[in-house]
C-alpha cells in the first residue's frame, strides 16, 4: 500500500480540487463548499466507489426503427433497409451526444466519466449512427475502470471500430490490415515495436471479424477467416484476433505506451519518465488493472507536486462540462453543443482521425481561444439566457443557468471575500489572478449583479482554461 503524506491527513483543499479536476470534470459550487473542509482520503474513497457503470440507452423511437430494419434480416430488402435506417438515424445523434454530456456533468461517478472520455479519445473512432455509437460508449464504460486486456478485446469486436478501420473489408482472399496496424501503432504498443510482417500476419488473424450494421453486433464470418498458421512477434500458431491481442499484451512496452498516455492526460503533458515507469510497473504487474493503476496515481505524492498542478489546458469537453457543473447549464436544444464542438474543435464520436485529439496546446488557436474565453459570457450574459434566481424570462427559455446556490451563500457578504472564494474554488492560486480585476467598475450594481459579474469574470480568466 501507499505510504503517502498527502493521503494521511496532510492534504488540503488545493489537493482535492486538483484531484477532481483531473479525475473528474472539476467541482460545482455546492460540491466545492462541501468538500473544501473534507480530507483527501475521503475524496479519493468517494471517487473510487462510484459503483457499476450506468449504460446509455437508445430512444425508444429509434429502437423501433432498428427493429423494423431487423425484421428484414435475410431478405432482399436488407441492404435497402440498412441504408434507410442510416438516413433516419442521423437526427438522433445529437440526442446521444447530449445524454453523454449530461452524464459527464452528473457528479455521481466522475472518475468513470473521465476514464470513458479518455478511452474514447484513445480508441479514436468515428461513429455516425446512434446504435453504433451507444454500443461503443457502453462497451468503453463497462471496461473503463476494469481490465485493459478486456477493453482491447472488446474494442476489436466493436462494430463501429470494425467499420471505421475497414475490418469489414478484411477477408482471407484480400486482407485489409488497417485495424491490425492501428491496433499496434495507436492502441497498444506504439510504433517501432513491431514489423511490417507482424502487421500482415495480424491482419490475417482478424479476417472475417465483421460487424452487423443493423444490430450493431460483432459477427464472425468463418468463410472469410484465414485459419492458417501465422508467425507473429516471434510466435507461430493458427492465431485468431484474440490470440494476437494476448501476444501483444505480453510485451511490457504496451504498459509503457499506455502509461505515457495516461501521464500526459491525467498528470502532466510534459512527460516525467520516472513517473511513467512507475505507472507502467503497476499497470503491467497488475495484469492491466486500470482501476488499481489510476488509484496508485491519484494516491501518489508526485501527482500533487506543484509542477503538475494547473499545467494542463482543459479540453473543450472538460471546459464545457466544468462550466455546466458550476452554472448548472440546461439547454432546450442541441445547437449550443454543436457550436461548442465545432467552435472549440472537439466533437464526441468524431475525433479528427484514428490518432485521437492531439490535446494540450493543439486545442488553442486564435479562434478557439476567443470562443473559449467568451463561453462564460455566452452562457451568462446572452439575451436568451434565463438566470434562475435573477431573471425571469419567458416560460420556455432556450438556455437556463441556476445561480441560486451562489446568491444564497453570498447574500450580505463583502465583495472582496466573495472574489477570494471564487478564485479559491475555481482558479489555482499559483496562477495568481488579479482580484481587483474581478470587481472593477461594478459598484453601482445590485448585489446579485455584482455576484453574476464576478462569477462570469472568474470563469473568463485565461487561467480558468487550465486545470
Amino acid at each position: 500500500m501507499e505510504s503517502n503524506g498527502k493521503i494521511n491527513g496532510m492534504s488540503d483543499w488545493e489537493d482535492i480540487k486538483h484531484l477532481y479536476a483531473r479525475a473528474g470534470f472539476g467541482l460545482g459550487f455546492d460540491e466545492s463548499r462541501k468538500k473544501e473542509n473534507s480530507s483527501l482520503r475521503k475524496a479519493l474513497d468517494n471517487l473510487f466507489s462510484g459503483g457499476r457503470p450506468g449504460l446509455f440507452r437508445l430512444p425508444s423511437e429509434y429502437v423501433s426503427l432498428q427493429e423494423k430494419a431487423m425484421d428484414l434480416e435475410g431478405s432482399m430488402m436488407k441492404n435497402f433497409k440498412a441504408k434507410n435506417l442510416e438516413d433516419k438515424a442521423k437526427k438522433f445523434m445529437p440526442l446521444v451526444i447530449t445524454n453523454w454530456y449530461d452524464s459527464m456533468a452528473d457528479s455521481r461517478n466522475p472518475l468513470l466519466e473521465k476514464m470513458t472520455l479518455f478511452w474514447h479519445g484513445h480508441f479514436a473512432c468515428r461513429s455516425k449512427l446512434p446504435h453504433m455509437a451507444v454500443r461503443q460508449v457502453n462497451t468503453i464504460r463497462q471496461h473503463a475502470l476494469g481490465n485493459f486486456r478486456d477493453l482491447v478485446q472488446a474494442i476489436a469486436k466493436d462494430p463501429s471500430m470494425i467499420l471505421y478501420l475497414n475490418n469489414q473489408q478484411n477477408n482471407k482472399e484480400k486482407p485489409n490490415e488497417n485495424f491490425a496496424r492501428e491496433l499496434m501503432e495507436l492502441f497498444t504498443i506504439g510504433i517501432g515495436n513491431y514489423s511490417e510482417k507482424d502487421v500482415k500476419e495480424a491482419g490475417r488473424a482478424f479476417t472475417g471479424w465483421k460487424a452487423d450494421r443493423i444490430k450493431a453486433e460483432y459477427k464472425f464470418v468463418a468463410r472469410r477467416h484465414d485459419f492458417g498458421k501465422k508467425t507473429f512477434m516471434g510466435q507461430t500458431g493458427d492465431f485468431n484476433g484474440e490470440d494476437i491481442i494476448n501476444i501483444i499484451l505480453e510485451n511490457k512496452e504496451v504498459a509503457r505506451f499506455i502509461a505515457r498516455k495516461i501521464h500526459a492526460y491525467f498528470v502532466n503533458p510534459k512527460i516525467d519518465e520516472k513517473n511513467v515507469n512507475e505507472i507502467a510497473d503497476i499497470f503491467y504487474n497488475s495484469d492491466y488493472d486500470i482501476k488499481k493503476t489510476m488509484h496508485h496515481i491519484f494516491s501518489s505524492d508526485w501527482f500533487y507536486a506543484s509542477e503538475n498542478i494547473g499545467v494542463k489546458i482543459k479540453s473543450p469537453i472538460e471546459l464545457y462540462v466544468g462550466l455546466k457543473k458550476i452554472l448548472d447549464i440546461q439547454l432546450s436544444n442541441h445547437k449550443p453543443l454543436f457550436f461548442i464542438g465545432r467552435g472549440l474543435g472537439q466533437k464526441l464520436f468524431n475525433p479528427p482521425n484514428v490518432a485521437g485529439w492531439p490535446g494540450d496546446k493543439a486545442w488553442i488557436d486564435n479562434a478557439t481561444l476567443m470562443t473559449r474565453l467568451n463561453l462564460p459570457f455566452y452562457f451568462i450574459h446572452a439575451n436568451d439566457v434565463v438566470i434562475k434566481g435573477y431573471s425571469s424570462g419567458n416560460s420556455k427559455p432556450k438556455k437556463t443557468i441556476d445561480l441560486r446556490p451562489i446568491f444564497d451563500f453570498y447574500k450580505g457578504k463583502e465583495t472582496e471575500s466573495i472574489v477570494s472564494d471564487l478564485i479559491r474554488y475555481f482558479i489555482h492560486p499559483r496562477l495568481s489572478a488579479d482580484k481587483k480585476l474581478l470587481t472593477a467598475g461594478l459598484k453601482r450594481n445590485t448585489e446579485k449583479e455584482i455576484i453574476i459579474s464576478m462569477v462570469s469574470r472568474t470563469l473568463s480568466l485565461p487561467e480558468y482554461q487550465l486545470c
Partner: protein
Amino acid sequence: MKRRDFLKTSSLATGAMMLPEFIRSTGLFDIWNDKVGKRLVVVQLSGGNDGLNTIVPFENDIYYNARPRLGIEKGKVIRLNDTLGFNPVLQPLESVFKEGEMTIINSVGYPNPDRSHFRSMDIWQTGSGSEEYWSTGWLGRFLDNECNGCPPYYALDVDDNLNLALKGKEKDGFATNNIGKLRKTSGNRFLKMVAEHHHDDHDHDNVAYLYKTMTDTQSSADYLFEKSKVHRSTVTYPQTTFGKDLKQISELMTAKANIRIYYASLGGFDTHAGQKGKQDRLLETYAEGMKAFIRDLKKNGLFDETLILTFSEFGRRVKQNAGNGTDHGTANNLFMMGGRLKKQGFFNAAPDLSDLDNGDLKYQIDFRQIYSEVINHWMDGDAEKVLGQRFSSLNMIG
C-alpha cells in the same frame, strides 16, 4: 439599473497600450508592409471534386462509356487543347487559361490513397504519407521554419476555425471569416483589461502561451479591422459566401496587410447522387468568384505577386454510380493561377483511363511535389524541412 447597461461596464475602457502590434496597427509603419512580397492563396474544394467532369477528356470513349448519364457532351465542352476541355460552367476561367495565367496539373495524388474524406483531407493538409498521422500542417510548419518575427495573422484562414494545414508546432495561422465579429469577441472589455494587467509568468509555460495568444488575437483583430477598411473593392463579386471571402482577401491584399498566406474553401463537392446540377452550381460559384478575384488583383497590380493553388482531397471514380453520381476516388487535377507561371496551360498529359487501379485513376504527381515547388520557388522557404523529405523540382513556378 437595466441589465443591458450593467453588462456594458463601460468604465473599464482604457487607452491603447503601447504594444508593438498596436503601433503596427496604426499604419504609421506601413513601410514594413511593403515587404509582403509574393502571396499564396490556397483554395480548398472540400468533399472531393469530380475532376473528370471539371477537365473533360472529350475525345475519350472510355470516359463516355463509364458515364452514360454524367458524361459532358463533346459539343458543350470548352476546348482547351485537342483532348481536354472545361466543363462549360467554367467559362469565366476560359480567358485566364488562354492568357497563360493558369496551369492545370493532371493526376495529382499520393501512394496508397485513402478514400475517406477526413483522412484524405488530413493527408493533404498535413502533407504526410497515407500511413502517417501528423498533427501539424504543411503551412503551419512553413511558419515554424520560416517565420521569425512574423505577425500572428501572417497566414490567414478565412474560416471560423483554423484548419490543420495552418497549424504548426510553435506557430499557427490565424482564423476568421468575419473580421467585424472577431473584433467584437476579442473586444470583450474584461478580457482586454485582463490582457493589459497581465505580467509575464515565465515559469508557467501554458499561462504565458494563453496570454500571448489572447493579446495577439486582440491586437490582430484591431489590425485586420483597420486594414479591412482601407480599401473597398470596386469589382463586382458574385453574391456567394465564397465570393465574399475572396473579396475580403483581395481587400486585405490591396491594403497591403502583412499577410502572405490566405486560405479559402468551398464545400459540398461530395456528389454521390444527382451530381450534375450540384457540381455545376459549385464549379460556377468557384469560377465566377475566381474571375472577379483575378480581375480585382490585376486592377490593383497584385496578380503578378499572387499564386493561387486550388485542390480537393480526392477525385472521384471514373464510373458513375447508379444514382447518377460518383463515389470517392483517388488522383485528381489541381489548378495553379497567377501572373508568373513558368509552365502555362497543361502541365502534363490527361489521365490514362485505360490504366486504372481498381476503377480509379493512378496518380502521376505526388501532391507534396507541388507543395515543395510552392515552398521552394514561390515562398522562398526550405521544403525539405517543412515536408520532412526532398521532392524533385517540377520547375513550374518562380
